[in-house]
C-alpha cells in the first residue's frame, strides 16, 4: 500500500491521480496495486467484485509507467485517465476477462472483444481492475438477483446497495476506485448511486456506445458512469461519449468538454429554471427523502436558480409502461441464451427443445424467468395490442410531457429514489414493491433524456439520500455543471463505514 486515499480526498480525484502519475510522483503500478488490494480485502464484506484482474491490471500499469517516463522525457501531457483504476459492471465486455451478467447461464464466459467504451477508456490510459457484481442481466433494484450473492451497502452492510449496478456503486462508495461503469435500463446507475452516496450519470440515449454491452431492453439500455465526485464522472464521460459506427443507435452529436465546462460554477446555476413536479412527491415518498430534496432545492435557490412548479401528467404511469416495454424487449433479447453457442448447457437432454428448456431453467434465476414470461405474455397473440402497443403509445405521451415541461424549465428535479437503502431481504418476495423503486428514474429511460443523481444528505440513520436532475436531450454538460455547483455548496461530508482507506 502506498498510503494514499481515494475516498473523499480531493488530492485523489482522477485529475490529481493522473497528474501525479504523469509527473512521476507515484506510479500507475502502485496506484493499481492499492486499488486491487482494497478490492480483494473488502470483497469478503461487500461482494462487489465477481472478478479481480490483478495480473492484467498490473501488467497494463507497468506499460503505462514505462510510457509515462518516455512521455515525460518528451514533454508530452499524459492521456486524460493515465493510470486511473476503474471497475466495470459484469455485463460490459472486456477482452480477457469474464462477462457473467450475474448469471449462471453465462458463468465464466469470456467475450472475444471489448466494448467500445472499454477501448476508449483504455486508450485514455485507464486500468480496468475487475468486473463488478450486478443483478442477473441487470434485472433488479437491490442486487439480490445476482447468481453470485448480493452486494452489501458500504454505509450499512445489512442493507442493499441498490441495483442493478450495485457492485460498481459499492466499489466507488467504498473508495476502491474513483469511478466505475454501470448500465441502466430503468435507473440501475442513478438508484444505486443515490443509495450509496455517490454521483451517477445516465446519458442521453445514443450518447455512449452500447457495442459490447449485453442487451436487456434495447430501446431503454444505456451505459452509465459512477464517480466519487462530479468532476470524476465528467472526466470518464468525456472519454467514452460520442458516435460509434459499431452501434447504429449511437448518435452523431458533438461532445462538449464536460470537464472544462465545469469551471463556470456560479454562472452555471444563476438564472437556471429548475422544474419540480411536486404532484409526484406523494404516496410512497419517505419524509426524510422529501425533506432532503426540498433542502437541496433551497440550496439551488440560494445559488441563484429559479424553482418553478411543473406537471408531468403521465409520469404516474411510467412504471406500468416500463415493465411492459422492458420485459417485452428482454424476452426477445434473452432468447439468444439457449446453450448452443456459449455459456452453460444443461446435461442429458434428449432433444434440442429439451436442451433449450432445461438450460434456461437451470441457467436463469427467478426474476429473469419472471420477466421473460411477463414479456412473452404481453407480446403473445391476442395481447400485443392491449399491452405492448398501448405502452408504446403512453410512452409517446410521456415524451410529450417532458417536451412541454422543458418549455418552462431547464432541468427537472426529483428525489432519485422514494426511500434510502432498504434491508437485504425486505422486498425480495414482492416483485411489484421492488419495481416501485424505479418510480423517479425509469421515466428518463422511456423518454431517452439524461439524468444525474447527486448526494443531497443523510437520513437520521446515516443513510445517503439522492437528488436527481433530468435535462433535455444532450444536456449532460448542464447536468454535470449544476451537480458540480451543488457538490461545492453542499458537500456530503460523511463517509461510509466500510471503506478502502482512512
Amino acid at each position, binding site marked *: 500500500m502506498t498510503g494514499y486515499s481515494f475516498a473523499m480526498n480531493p488530492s485523489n480525484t482522477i485529475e490529481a491521480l493522473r497528474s501525479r502519475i504523469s509527473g512521476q510522483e507515484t506510479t500507475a503500478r502502485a496506484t493499481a496495486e492499492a486499488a486491487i488490494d482494497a478490492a480483494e480485502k473488502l470483497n469478503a464484506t461487500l461482494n462487489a467484485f465477481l472478478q479481480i484482474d490483478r495480473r492484467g491490471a498490473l501488467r497494463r500499469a507497468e506499460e503505462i509507467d514505462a510510457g509515462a517516463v518516455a512521455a515525460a522525457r518528451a514533454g508530452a501531457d499524459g492521456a486524460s485517465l493515465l493510470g486511473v483504476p476503474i471497475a466495470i459492471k459484469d455485463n460490459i465486455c472486456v477482452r480477457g476477462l469474464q462477462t457473467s451478467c450475474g448469471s449462471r447461464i453465462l458463468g465464466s464466459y469470456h467475450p472475444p472483444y471489448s466494448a467500445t467504451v472499454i477501448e476508449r477508456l483504455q486508450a485514455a490510459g485507464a486500468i480496468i481492475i475487475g468486473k463488478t457484481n450486478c443483478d442477473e442481466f441487470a434485472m433488479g433494484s437491490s442486487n439480490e438477483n445476482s447468481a453470485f450473492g448480493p452486494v452489501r451497502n458500504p454505509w450499512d452492510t445489512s442493507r442493499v446497495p441498490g441495483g442493478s449496478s450495485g457492485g460498481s456503486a459499492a466499489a466507488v462508495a467504498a473508495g476502491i476506485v474513483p469511478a466505475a461503469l454501470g448500465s441502466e435500463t430503468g435507473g440501475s446507475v442513478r438508484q444505486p448511486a443515490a443509495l450509496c452516496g455517490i454521483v451517477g450519470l445516465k446519458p442521453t440515449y445514443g450518447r455512449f456506445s452500447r457495442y459490447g454491452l449485453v442487451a436487456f431492453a434495447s430501446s*431503454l439500455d444505456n451505459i452509465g458512469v459512477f464517480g466519487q465526485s462530479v468532476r470524476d464522472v465528467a472526466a470518464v464521460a468525456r472519454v467514452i461519449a460520442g458516435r460509434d459506427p459499431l452501434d447504429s443507435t449511437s448518435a452523431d452529436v458533438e461532445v462538449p468538454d464536460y470537464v472544462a465546462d465545469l469551471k463556470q460554477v456560479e454562472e452555471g446555476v444563476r438564472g437556471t429554471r429548475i422544474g419540480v413536479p411536486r404532484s409526484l412527491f406523494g404516496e410512497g415518498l419517505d419524509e426524510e427523502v422529501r425533506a432532503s430534496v426540498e433542502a437541496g432545492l433551497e440550496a439551488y435557490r440560494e445559488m441563484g436558480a429559479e424553482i418553478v412548479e411543473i406537471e408531468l401528467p403521465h409520469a404516474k404511469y411510467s412504471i406500468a409502461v416500463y415493465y411492459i416495454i422492458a420485459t417485452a424487449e428482454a424476452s426477445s433479447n434473452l432468447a439468444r441464451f439457449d446453450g448452443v453457442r456459449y*455459456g452453460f448447457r444443461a446435461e442429458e437432454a434428449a432433444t434440442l427443445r429439451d436442451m433449450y428448456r432445461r438450460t434456461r431453467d437451470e441457467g436463469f434465476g427467478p426474476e429473469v424467468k419472471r420477466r421473460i414470461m411477463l414479456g412473452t*405474455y404481453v407480446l403473445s397473440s391476442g395481447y400485443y395490442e392491449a399491452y405492448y402497443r398501448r405502452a408504446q403509445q403512453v410512452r*409517446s405521451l410521456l415524451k410529450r410531457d417532458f417536451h412541454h415541461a422543458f418549455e418552462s424549465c431547464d432541468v427537472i428535479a426529483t428525489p432519485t429514489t422514494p426511500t434510502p437503502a432498504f434491508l437485504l431481504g425486505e422486498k425480495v418476495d414482492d*416483485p411489484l414493491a421492488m419495481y416501485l423503486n424505479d418510480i423517479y428514474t425509469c421515466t428518463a429511460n422511456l423518454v431517452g433524456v439524461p439524468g444525474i443523481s447527486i448526494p443531497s444528505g443523510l437520513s437520521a440513520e446515516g443513510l445517503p439520500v439522492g437528488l436527481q436532475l433530468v435535462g433535455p436531450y444532450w444536456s449532460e454538460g448542464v447536468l454535470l455543471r449544476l451537480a458540480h455547483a451543488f457538490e461545492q455548496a453542499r458537500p456530503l461530508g460523511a463517509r461510509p463505514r466500510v471503506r478502502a482507506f482512512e
Partner: protein
Amino acid sequence: MPITESDIEKIAQLAHLEITDEERRAFTPQIAEIVAYVEQLNELDTSRIEPSIGGLTPEGERTHAIREDAVRPSLGQELALDQAPDPASGHFRVPKVL
C-alpha cells in the same frame, strides 16, 4: 381475465422455459399482480396517439447508421467456437432436433 397456472405453463413453453411446479405456483399470483398493475394504462384514451417505437432521439434518427457494404474481417471459426459448450469438427453440436 385472471391469469391461471395453466396460462403460466403455456407462457413458459412459449418462452422455452421449463419451470417446476413450485415455480409455477409462485409465479402465477406474482405475474397476475403485475399484469393487474399495468392494466391501469387502460384508463387512458390512446386511440389517436402514435406509438413510440425504439428509443432514438431526433438527432439519433438523423444519424447516418448504414455502413458501406464491404467485406471486413470477422471472428473466424476457431474464435467463434471457442466458448461453445459442445463444439465438434468446426461446428456447434446439439442434441437431435426431431
